[in-house]
């Protein structure tokens, strides 16, 4: 049998791989992620140009969940819009309800009683816990740590039960009214909130053990998606995403509303602004929120849960409507014409789980806003994507998106 030999020259391996690289350069691949993709936590679409594994350009496409909330608001009374605010950041509807009611009350120059304020603080903080539990859980899942999600979701389930007891709904709460809240807290509810607080802390410790010093999690997040302090401010980031970059701005501390100055809590501030810091912010904020909830319940004031003097804004009690003429008329006027809010321009924003949720209201008087603009924090937080993502590996996109913790309902409105 004749044997033929063929000589193959492999040459210098290093030089060959170098050639290989120069060959590929200039050939980019376009990749479309979303609008329906688990990474995007909703309906965000990213149009990207890839060079191998590295993203060169990223163009976010929004609007798949645009419902025209601002247009709708111009065509209904102030109270009728409360259910629409549930659907902004639908992970924390109670916090949206509170922020919206406070914006309108600021325009009406209406001060709600202390008990109402405390109820609203509880609402905001429980909503923050709920949102951050999801944020941390899903983030862990995005980075490959499935277990965390199970732990945090078990706790969220307990929160939903509390919300249901308070508002009658688990998800879309619609709890606040202009000048108060829909109903007083149920008997024994505060005790059950305390019980939840007691239960959630060990879970946070477990999450901490699972994630914070986890080698894989740290490899995937430390140094990834770092945002500089200057960029964060220029792009209008707010909330935990801004604080992770080292900017100490928390509206609860710096522009106290709802009596937040009474509570003793700390605002975590990051250093590098990378994905890992953003996780640390949320994890710590849950603990701080638990502490605020406890302090709030400790000094829970007696009194009314709505502004009793605001006869043209808050509808009277049902029992009185059925028996007294004056209250019947008052109720009729508020239901048909809406709460009577004076003319003016007002901007109010509250420190929501995702960032500063702002409402800009232009009123010409009466029960309907002339213009209502919603400043969704997720919208601003996402606007940095086309600067942040290029230069990262494709696999990091999942982690970066997860760390920004956005909600498209609020982004697209």
């Amino acid at each position, binding site marked *: 049998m004749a044997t033929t030999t063929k000589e193959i020259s492999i040459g210098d391996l290093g030089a060959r791989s170098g050639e290989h690289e120069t060959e590929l350069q200039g050939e980019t691949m376009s990749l479309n992620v979303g609008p329906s993709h688990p990474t995007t936590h909703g309906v965000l679409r990213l149009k990207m140009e890839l060079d191998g594994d590295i993203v060169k350009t990223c163009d976010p496409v929004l609007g798949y969940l645009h419902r025209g909330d601002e247009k709708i608001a111009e065509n209904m009374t102030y109270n009728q819009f409360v259910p629409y605010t549930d659907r902004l950041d639908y992970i924390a509807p109670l916090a949206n309800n509170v922020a919206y009611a406070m914006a309108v009350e600021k325009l009406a120059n209406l001060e709600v009683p202390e008990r109402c304020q405390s109820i609203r603080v509880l609402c905001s903080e429980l909503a923050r816990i709920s949102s951050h539990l999801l944020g941390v859980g899903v983030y862990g899942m995005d980075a490959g740590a499935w277990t965390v999600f199970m732990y945090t979701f078990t706790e969220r389930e307990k929160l939903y039960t509390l919300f249901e007891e308070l508002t009658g709904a688990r998800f879309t709460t619609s709890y606040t009214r202009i000048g108060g809240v829909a109903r007083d807290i149920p008997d024994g509810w505060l005790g059950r909130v305390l019980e939840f607080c007691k239960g959630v802390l060990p879970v946070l410790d477990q999450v901490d053990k699972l994630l914070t010093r986890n080698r894989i999690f740290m490899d995937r997040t430390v140094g990834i998606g770092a945002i500089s302090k200057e960029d964060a401010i*220029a792009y209008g980031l707010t909330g935990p995403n801004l604080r992770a970059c080292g900017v100490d701005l928390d509206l609860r501390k710096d*522009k106290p509303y709802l009596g937040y100055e009474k509570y003793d809590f700390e605002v975590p501030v990051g250093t590098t602004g990378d994905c890992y810091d953003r996780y640390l912010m949320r994890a710590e904020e849950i603990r701080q929120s638990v502490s605020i909830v406890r302090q709030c319940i400790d000094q829970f004031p007696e009194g009314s849960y709505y502004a009793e003097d605001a006869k043209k804004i808050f509808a009277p009690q049902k029992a009185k409507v059925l028996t007294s003429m004056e209250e019947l008329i008052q109720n009729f006027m508020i239901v048909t014409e809406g709460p009577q809010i004076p003319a*003016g321009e007002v901007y109010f924003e509250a420190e929501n789980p995702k960032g500063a949720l702002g409402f800009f209201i232009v009123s010409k008087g009466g029960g309907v806003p002339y213009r209502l603009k919603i400043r969704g924090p997720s*919208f601003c937080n996402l606007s940095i994507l086309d600067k942040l993502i290029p230069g990262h590996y494709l696999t990091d996109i999942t982690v970066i998106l997860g760390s920004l913790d956005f909600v498209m309902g609020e982004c697209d409105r």
Partner: protein
Amino acid sequence: MAESEFAQLQERFDYLSERESADHLAVNCPADKLVELCTALRDELGYDLLLDVTAVDWDVQSPRFTGFYHLLSTTKHEYLRIVSDCTDDINPSLPTLSGVFAAANWHERETYDLMGIRYEGHPDLRRILMWDEYPYHPLRKDFPLAGIETPLPAADVAEATKAKVLPAPMMGGPFVSSADGPMSQTEPSALDESWTEQKEKPVPSASPDGGKKN
């Protein structure tokens, strides 16, 4: 307190005038001074966080469109509202702030999309929430709440399914009261009667304008 703050501002920028506001300091600024003012506010006075850019359509009034900007100082923790009228009612425009604040980029795209205000000098003035071919600016007051019949964004799907974007069946609703007039007239009535069971479907009332890029 707000008055002295305004006096300080006016000393530095003499073209400003104070605007009535239900909360924090608000100033009127001529459109051509906007970029100059915001640069100075950012660099010298610490108003470094642009929170919000929006506009209001005053309907029959002139000037019809007014731009609103909300700034926050991350160091002093003070808000500031800057208000600027668009001089042209038909083709409203304002100078872009995207060179001063990166955040303005998306906000201005949104305001352009929904309100139809052109931001001169904007690097990428595309629609952001509606699709690119959409011909109207829905937040304008002459755009009906129900919407206007429009072709689908995807031409191939539209051809295969013969589907269109249809106005919502409002049936006379929503029923809201108006703010002014005697009590007998402030009773709730249908704001948008463009389509009821008795009436025919609406004809487009808002005219397609500069929706497409020039």
